[in-house]
Every structure is written in structure tokens, then in C-alpha cells.
């Protein structure tokens, strides 16, 4: 009994240590936002400083609330659309037989290997041609066609949705769209939640696309807007850290709310391969 208790204590201490290691960077990030930038580099800070008010003032000297709103619209919209498009494409690739299926799937996979930067100019020309420049649409709609998302959903759908269930539904008179919505999607729920979170995260942190397609400050997202605190002559690190700390909150909240789905989605995909 006492041996078991001893092991428990060791386990507890180990978990505590790992937790400290994981939480410390986040804690110091919060603390850094309360100091004057120059003071940040005079040693590690563990106690809150007295410069929070000034940093908040600096942060609000840019239109942070508008940037926040834009980021939520973009990341939220992108996450929803990505899930819809990728779930449909993944379902099609996983469960239907059609001409050139393998070739098409391979070409989707190939796009994952090409860095976004290579096609940047073409992408901007395309957005210009369809009249989407200087709007949030290029940040919401094109990312919905995510190669990773399609791959992810295809892998998940191929093993998570039993063919027998689909056949039964068809025999019962279910059309293909209803089949997808009412039968397939519930099976793919965990993968959808995971993809939604990942898509939200990609979009939330994206700097390059907003930089090149938006030239209207009122449409800036957080990563782009917050860089205004860095100029040729000075980098207000503390204010930037404070801004980034505040902007990680939605991600933390989302993760807390959907952590079960995320973890189950990830582990299910890992097992199913």
C-alpha cells in the first residue's frame, strides 16, 4: 500500500513538473505584457510589472478591436467553410468510385507539397480578377479548399463510415445529399471538430495572405495589425506580447471547449491511419 502511495507521489511530482514546464512560457508571456519593453531584457520576470496601463494604451493606439473582429470573422468563417468543403470532398474521395479518382486525389496531395509563397502572385492576380481584393473573402473562401483537410477527411471517412450503413440508407430511399448530411457527417463529427480547430488556428495566425491582399486598414486582422507596433526605429515588444496574449484567449477557449473532440479526432485518425 505504502509502495503504491510512493509511486503516486512520484507520479504526481512528475506531472507537476511537466505542467510547470508547459505553463511557464504562457505565464511569462502574460507577465511580459506588464513591463516596459527595455526592462524585459534585464532578466526573467515572474512578478507583474507596473507598465500594464501604458502597454494597454499603446495597444489601443492601434485599432485592435477592429482587428480582433476581423480575425474572428475570418477565422470563424474559414473554419466553417473548410469543414463543409473538406468533409464533402473527403466523403466523395472515400466512398465513391469515379473516373480519375486516384489521379485527382494525388493532385490534391501534391498541392500540400508546394509552399504557399510560390503561388502568391498568381493567387493575388486571381483575387484581383474576381474582385475580392481589399475584402475579407480571400481569407475565408480559398482556404476552404484545404488539401490537408481533404486528405484528413478522406482518411477518416474511408474507415469511420461503414458501407453497410450507407447501403441501408440508400435502400430506405435516402438521396446522396441526405446520406451525407444525416448519415456520414455524424460519423465524421470528431474529424470535423479537429479540422475546424486547426483551420481556425491557421487562419487566426495567418500573416502573409492578409498582407498581400488587403490594403485597407479597417480590414486588417490581428497578426497584420499588431505589427504596426513595430516600426523602423523601435519594436514595442511588451505591447506586442500583451496584444498577442489577449489574442490567444479565443484559441484557448476554443480548445478548452472542444478539447475532447480534438483529442478523440486526433487519436482516432492516428489509429485508423
Amino acid at each position: 500500500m505504502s509502495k503504491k502511495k510512493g509511486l503516486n507521489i512520484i507520479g504526481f511530482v512528475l506531472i507537476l513538473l511537466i505542467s510547470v514546464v508547459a505553463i511557464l512560457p504562457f505565464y511569462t508571456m502574460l507577465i511580459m505584457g506588464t513591463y516596459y519593453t527595455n526592462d524585459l531584457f534585464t532578466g526573467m520576470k515572474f512578478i507583474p510589472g507596473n507598465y500594464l496601463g501604458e502597454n494597454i494604451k499603446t495597444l489601443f493606439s492601434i485599432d485592435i478591436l477592429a482587428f480582433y473582429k476581423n480575425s474572428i470573422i475570418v477565422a470563424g468563417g474559414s473554419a466553417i467553410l473548410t469543414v463543409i468543403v473538406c468533409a464533402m470532398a473527403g466523403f466523395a474521395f472515400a466512398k465513391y468510385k469515379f473516373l480519375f479518382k486516384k489521379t485527382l486525389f494525388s493532385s490534391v496531395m501534391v498541392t500540400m507539397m508546394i509552399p504557399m509563397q510560390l503561388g502568391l502572385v498568381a493567387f493575388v492576380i486571381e483575387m484581383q480578377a474576381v474582385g475580392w481584393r481589399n475584402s475579407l473573402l480571400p481569407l475565408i473562401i480559398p482556404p476552404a479548399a484545404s488539401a490537408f483537410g481533404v486528405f484528413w477527411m478522406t482518411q477518416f471517412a474511408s474507415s469511420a463510415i461503414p458501407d453497410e450503413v450507407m447501403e441501408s440508407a440508400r435502400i430506405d430511399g435516402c438521396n446522396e445529399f441526405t446520406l451525407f448530411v444525416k448519415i456520414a457527417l455524424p460519423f465524421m463529427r470528431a474529424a470535423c471538430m479537429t479540422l475546424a480547430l486547426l483551420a481556425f488556428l491557421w487562419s487566426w495566425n495567418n500573416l502573409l495572405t492578409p498582407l498581400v491582399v488587403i490594403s485597407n486598414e479597417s480590414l486588417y486582422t490581428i497578426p497584420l495589425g499588431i505589427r504596426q507596433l513595430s516600426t523602423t526605429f523601435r519594436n514595442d515588444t511588451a505591447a506586442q506580447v500583451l496584444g498577442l496574449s489577449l489574442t490567444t484567449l479565443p484559441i484557448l477557449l476554443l480548445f478548452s471547449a472542444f478539447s475532447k473532440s480534438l483529442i478523440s479526432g486526433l487519436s482516432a485518425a492516428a489509429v485508423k491511419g
Partner: protein
Amino acid sequence: MNKNLNFRKVVSLTAAIAMTVTMLAGCGSNNEQAAQSSGQAQTTTSTAAESTAAESTSQTGALKGEITQWVWGDYEKKGAVDFTKTYPDIKVNYVMVPQNDYVKKLQTTAASNGDMPDVANLEMTARGSLANLDIWEKLDAAPYNLNKDDLVPFAIPISQNKKGDIVCVQIDNCVGGYAYNRELAKKYFGTDDPAELEKVLTNWDVFVQKGKEISEKSGGKNFLFAGSDDAYYALIGLYTKEPWVQDKKLNLDTTVLPTMKYIEQMIKDKALGKYVMWTPAWNSSFASNTVVFYAAPTWFVPFVMKANDKDANGKYGLITPPNGGYSWGGTAYGIPKESKNKELAWTYIKWFTMSREGSEGFFRTQGTPTLYSKVYDTDLYTNDANKDPYFGGQNIMQKYMEIAKNPNTQTRPMTEYDAGIYDSIVVVLRAMDTGLSADQALPKLKADIIKKFPELQQ
């Protein structure tokens, strides 16, 4: 059932093709198309420029409309506050673009034939490569006809592309002196008077010798300069008359090597601190009272020194460098060919950079002189009202004007390779910090540059 199955196949195939095409659309290369559209745009633009010029003649005194400038701070907005009084019908829209990403955005927009601003900023570091892109209006040609005599002579090389066309005009006069910590100067030189110090520090060999003395007397706690970057900038004035690349050949033996040799000596003498320029640690060096000299161009005083060492009235002084002076940094304004409001853009640039009113406004709001030569013989910058308590009441603008008028103050002609070469210099400086000699560093520097620009010869 069979019909249903066929329908499913068609729908699936269509959906999958649509998905694939959408994904590939953003990834494919489309340079030819871009070049074609760019060509078309240029043709349209020259026609627009001609008609703009014609309208200009007929509309003199009745300028009206809106222009857009991409900026990275409130520098222009504050500086041009009087512009709207003179030209109430011209509205300037300032779009904030992060400075670190400015070049990327400008290049991508130009390449994709997107909406360019009417006025774009060309910061000194990237100006060589930007100015040599064929996207700018020639300002010394019609309809602009910029008069070179309106600018101080050393402003011309930093406004031209490699063909010699003036494609931008720098707003700020960035000549530099050496700012010094008065208390430390008194301690190590026996005086904090600028004139007396200039008498002592007559050449660079003396400077290096004094650096060694400072290090020895302070037990390694005080430094001549904050670091090798600072020393590099302090010395560029000596060797800036020739470009870094001439006829596709690197020209570093005479332009960079002598500077590196001085830096090597100062590192050996422990006369340089360990601060890497522009890092927050370097920012904090100003208040640390350990560094005697900083290379200080005009903009350095309000944006770096006063920003990082706020309550320091009387702490600093300013002297002329041994060789006469240098120009470091600066932001120039250019008009993209794609601008739809070229006449208004030129009116704005001309007012800002080449008018008494613009110079007054810019100096009043930003504390920096312009390069407009016609006011240099007036007391706009040098009158006693400009004595600066931060510098113990010294009239530092008088000093900067002395440097600006000094015929030895020259600027290095720009090349499109400058930004890449500068990055390589910084890498090599870091290696020198750890003991690499100048003679060892030069081949490494050249090799690093050739790797980036294989078309160049050593």
C-alpha cells in the same frame, strides 16, 4: 438505380475536379500572364501620365482629389499637417503597412498588377532593389521635371536607379554625427565640450586608441561603441563614395574592408560592447551609462535616443565625425507607374521634400530637416530656438547643417544588391565578434554574397 449511380459518378467527378482546380489555382506559376498584364498596364499608364500632364497644365491652382500613401507610422501624417492647409482639396489617405513587410507587399502588388498606392515609401535598406524595379515614374523627366539643384548634392545618388533616373526623393536629411555621453566623455577625455572633443578626436586611429584606453580604465565596463554594428555604422562615412558593386563585380576591398579592420582592432581592444543593434538589449544600452559614443544621424535623436533614454536632459553632446560626416538611412517617396493620381502625388511629394513650407512643417513636427537645399542658407534649422536641452543646450541642428554642407559628406550610389550585401555584412560582423579577423572575414563575406547573387564576380 443504375441511372442514379451514373448521376452520383458525374456529381462526384465534377466536385472532385472543382476541388482540385481550386487548390491548384493558387499554386501554379503565372509569370507570363503577369508580365503580359504588367506590360498592358504600363502602356495604359503612360497614356494616363500624358493625359495627366495635359490636365495639369489646364488645372494649375485647382488641384482636387484623393491620394493614397502606404506608410508604417504617423511620420507623414504629422509631417504633412500643413499640406492640407495649402491644398485643402487634396485628401491624403494613409494606409499603415508594417515596415518589416512593406517591401514584400509592394513587390507582390506590383507583380500582380494590383492597386498600387499613389505614393510609396522607399526605405534606405531596400531602396537599391526597389528603385531598380521598372515600376516608378521618372521624376527628373516631364511632366515632373525635378530640379536637382533643389536637393543637397549627396541626396542625388540615393534617389537614382542604376540608369541614373531619379525615381524617388528622400524626405529626411540623415546626415550623422557622433552623440556622446557627457559624463563618460569628461571621465575619459577630461572634457565634455564638443569643440574640445573634436580637437582630440581628429582621426580614426586616435578614436581606436581612445577606445582601448576606455576599456582599460573602466576594467571592461565602459565601451567606445555599443557593439560592432554601431562601429560599422560610425565608420561607413569614410568609405561611401563608391558603390558596393561595379560592373557586376564586388567592390568591397576598398569600401568595406578598411572598416572591418578598424572593427577587428576595436574588438581586440575590448572597446566594443556586446549589444546587437536594434535588439531590445541594445535599446536599453542608452540608459545603462556604459557606452561613450553612438553614431547618430538626425533621425536617431528623436526616434532612438529620446525614445530609449527618456529622462536624460543634458546627458548627451554631439560632435562631427573625424572625416566630416556620413548619411545613414532615410525614407524616400516615389510615384508608382500604376498610380492613378500622379499629378496630385507629385504635388504632395514636391511640397513635402522641396518647399520651404514642407521643410518647416516636417522639422516642426518630426525634428528632422529635409534635403531641400534652398533653406540651408537660412536659419530655419539653426536658430537659437533649436537649442536642445537633451544635449545640454547644444544647437545640434547647427552641427548637422555643418555636416550636411561639408563637401566630404557623400553617399554611396545604390545598387540592387545592397540589401543582400548588408545582410551578409551583419552575418560576418557576428563572426568577427567571436574572433574572426577582417582578412578572414572578407572572403567569407564575398562567398556569402556570391551565393545569393551568382551573377556577381568576386
